[in-house]
């Protein structure tokens, strides 16, 4: 992936130039590699499949309309992701206004998050993701993160943005990204480590024949 990035960047720059010159059909090709990421981002933020799909579509239309403002010194994928994040944020804000819901944003300084304490950890292989219950457990843990932690976790650990890119996307300092990221990861470890241990029996301890 990393090795093909420069090439991909060049291809994308060419596609963007043709689209801006009037070949709008190329936009379909341009966004194809990112479709999945946009949906995952929107779903994790909005927690509803239909809303997420609509938000991903809206983000793509926005990207098309604003394509001329895309600056080639940033990655196209990062730009798309930040548009999607903003679309999702606006929808959440709208819902909150209509439902008079309180923000689930804890104050930045609020308490310390401690990890789940374990004596040992046996690697859980990614094959366990074939099991629907494991997928559901992971989904639930991600969407249960408070919004400010969920955003930074998604940008950095799911979308693979750098700390600097995540800070720019969220409009906060890099120090703040690091603090939020640390809390997000600790919260996930706290929830998921015990659950994964019980969902995925660790080999060799109580059942030496396994």
């Amino acid at each position, binding site marked *: 992936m990393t090795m093909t990035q420069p090439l991909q960047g060049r291809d994308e720059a060419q596609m963007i130039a043709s689209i801006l010159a009037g070949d*709008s059909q190329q936009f379909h090709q341009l966004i194809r590699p990112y479709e999945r990421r946009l*949906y995952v981002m929107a779903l994790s933020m909005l927690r509803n499949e239909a809303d997420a*799909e609509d938000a991903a579509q809206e983000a793509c239309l926005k990207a098309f309309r604003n394509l001329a403002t895309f600056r080639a010194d940033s990655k196209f994928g990062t730009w798309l992701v930040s548009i999607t994040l903003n679309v999702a944020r606006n929808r959440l804000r709208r819902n909150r206004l209509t439902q008079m819901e309180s923000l689930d944003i804890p104050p930045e300084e609020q308490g310390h998050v401690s990890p789940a304490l*374990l004596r040992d*950890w046996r690697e859980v292989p990614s094959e366990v*993701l074939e099991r629907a219950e494991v997928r559901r457990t*992971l989904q639930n843990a991600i969407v249960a993160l408070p919004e400010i932690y969920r955003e930074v976790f998604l940008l950095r650990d*799911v979308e693979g943005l750098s700390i600097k890119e995540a800070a720019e996307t969220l409009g906060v300092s890099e120090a703040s990204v690091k603090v939020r*990221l640390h809390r997000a990861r600790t919260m996930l470890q706290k929830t998921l*480590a015990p659950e994964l241990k019980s969902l995925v029996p660790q080999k060799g301890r109580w059942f030496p024949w396994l």
Partner: protein
Amino acid sequence: MVIDCKHVWNNISGYLDGTLDPALLQQVQKHLEQCGICSAILDSTRNILILTADERVFELPLGYSDRLHARLEANIRGISPSPIGG
């Protein structure tokens, strides 16, 4: 300097991202070599980040891509993105 477990937990994320300064990194590393609890926390956190970033966690709804491109097509056919400031 000897650092305690809590201090290590506070730096697990920085450790994984490689953003700790060299002196702190060395302290954390030394602690991890000796402390089973902290190394299990590090391993489980790393493992969980690999799992949660896996594409298989979230499934795309059936027909998602078709609907996306159909909506795009309906909106972009024959028009160009507006020029900057336009």
